[in-house]
């Protein structure tokens, strides 16, 4: 719970203070919806020796999106959304009403399993508010999710 409050507080400032993004420089807070995935070893040769460029990460950072998660026990909903490629999966799951990305988000946000179906349907109904534009950023989406949750009797206690 505390993590979400901190996350939400950080998010409030994330849109203005872009010089020092929470999670460290290079972190994907500014990721836009439908951001392409690039820089992946999609070609055959890299596949063969299963190469990774640069230093091997060792669980201390979350890797390619540059978000520093050291010291955190699990992902928060925020850092999950900021990961490259996750935002559009969440968007699709919310449009459909369920899915693996949405489940991951509820677990990351520590939403009680008994409230998950309700969370899913609230997200589905408020899709237009959560994804108002096609260039919405992950930070904005997290803000919008929190706004919608605050209005809901069963979900408001997760954000306030």
């Amino acid at each position: 719970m505390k993590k979400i409050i901190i996350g939400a507080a950080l998010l409030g400032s994330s849109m203005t203070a872009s010089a020092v993004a929470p999670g460290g420089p290079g972190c994907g807070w500014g990721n836009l919806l439908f951001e392409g995935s690039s820089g992946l070893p999609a070609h055959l040769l890299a596949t063969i020796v299963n190469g990774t460029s640069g230093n091997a990460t060792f669980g201390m950072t979350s890797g390619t999106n540059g978000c520093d998660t050291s010291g955190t026990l699990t992902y928060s909903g925020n850092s999950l959304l900021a990961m490259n490629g996750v935002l559009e999966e969440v968007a699709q799951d919310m449009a459909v009403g369920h899915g693996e990305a949405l489940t991951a988000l509820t677990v990351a946000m520590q939403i009680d399993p008994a409230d998950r179906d309700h969370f899913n349907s609230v997200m589905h109904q408020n899709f237009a508010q959560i994804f108002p534009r096609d260039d919405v950023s992950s930070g904005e989406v997290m803000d919008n999710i929190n706004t919608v949750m605050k209005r809901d009797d069963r979900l408001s206690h997760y954000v306030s």
Partner: protein
Amino acid sequence: MLWLCVVLWGAGAQAATAPDFAALAATPRWQALMHVNPGATLRGVGTSYVDDADFFLATDGKADPEAELRATWRALEPAQSQARCRFPARYRFLATTLGWHESAPLAHCEDYLAWRAQMPIGQLVLVFPAAYLNSPSSMFGHTLLRLDAEPDPDAVWLSRAINFGAQAGGADNSLFYIWRGLAGGYPGQFSVTSYVEKIRDYAFVENRDMWEYALDLDAGEIDWVVSHLWELRGINFDYYFFDENCSLRLLELIKVARPQAPLMTELRFAELPVNTVRALYGADLVAERRYRPSKAVELEALAARLDANERALAADLRDDPARVDTPAFKAYPPPRRHLMAQVAYQALRLRNREGDRDPDVARKSLALLRVVQRNPAPPPQPVPEPAPPERGHGTQTVNLGVGRQDGRDFLAFGYRLTYHDLFDPLAGFLPGAAIEGLDVQLRLDERDGLALESLDLVNIRSLAPRSEFVKPISWFVHAGLEQTPVADRARALGGFVQGGPGASWRFGDLFPYVFAVARIESVSGTDPDAALGGGAEAGLAYQAESVQWGLHARWLEFTSQFARLRTGVTANVPVSPDNALRGECSHESWQGEAVAGCSVSFRHFFD
């Protein structure tokens, strides 16, 4: 007093007398912690696979596990020892085998404890991303491990991925990279990342189905893996594509969890991921298997729920979401609209997920998602699960057959190192994908005696079906030696390289295809000694699990005013998972000459 003396003497002896290092060093757990090669690969049997001085406390630790054990004992025995923080699994080994009882032996190891707290130990899972569409070489595939917070977790997206890969510098060029990968020029290291990144890379971007095998290991056993993983942080192993690759390294990690498991008892040359999976089943380590379809397969399954008109409408929507306002679309009930919009959306994303963000695609994507959201969904249908890769036929093949060519009988036999052609039993393989490496075929003829019929070095064929939603280019490449028709004689052994782009489609189990073909060949004793040709090939391949058959015609025109037409038909019937019967006939004509023949053969797959 005497009694006290005995006790004191006993205590003194315990401190002064060193443990039986030779016996301890020979235990399976220490051998596993040292990564000693038990004979699983040919280089350095009996010495450690680790190629990094930082991993060893003794100067000859790599070659001498007992010396390393002595040095470890000396370094880890004192309380507050910094070496304990570097080697927590070795500490656990010594403490459990020698009966060390400290209440918090690693309390001073802040970095380790902080990292350890982030690593869940609920469940360990072997993950096998299968071959990806239109890239048969990825059949050789990759394996990684997943670490979950609990058994059967709700959200594996939040799990950790344990990966072993070559560490490549960004500036390396690809050819150099592949060579060093094969020859062992790259250091390989373990890394720990988030599993959702792996799902994105494999299932979303590369469109590979993923198979997840939950391992039957308890928390205590998984703890060995995690604490040992810390010991491997930044430690180099030379990476060899053929034997010391990711799959072998993961087996070693699992041996650390359960040293007595029979995982590396036999020679594991050219370790293929599918054999890693089989080894785990053989050691009774697989508790459960899960299938994770790729985005391409999800789209295919979703599109299969639409009829032809709906598919056409979905393709229109993908190109122009504004067509949701047309009467044709509005005539459908909401659940059908939902499905069509979802197919259109997924088709659009499949094409545009990779690469830079495109504002126009983003606009269309959100417009389609809004249609999806506005129309209630029909009941979900799970993606049908294909046969898992471990159910596929063995990776090596021997064949024995008889045939008749131009009125003469012959005996045919051959061996193929790897792996699968279009007519081999389909179960466990990606339809339309074929890759063969090192295929030797010999013939014993009543007149000519023993002769090499063909030697394929590499033969890759990808029939990637085109549909309303995906337009991949099929391709093939084939190089080797074969009995080649020549202008003035019957046939002679020649070397060749051929290949080309093509297109294929899919109607149920039937794949029609066409290819453009370019070929360069060199036949000994002919003039000119190298010939360049071009032409076309058309064919049909039928791939069902019970039977596979195909026919093809290939026409080639060479720059040396020489043309050839080859036609053939093949049928294959699997009689058991690792045995099949095959019949083949072919006819090849050139310059007024022709050769025709048929054969039947028995094919056995193994290893």
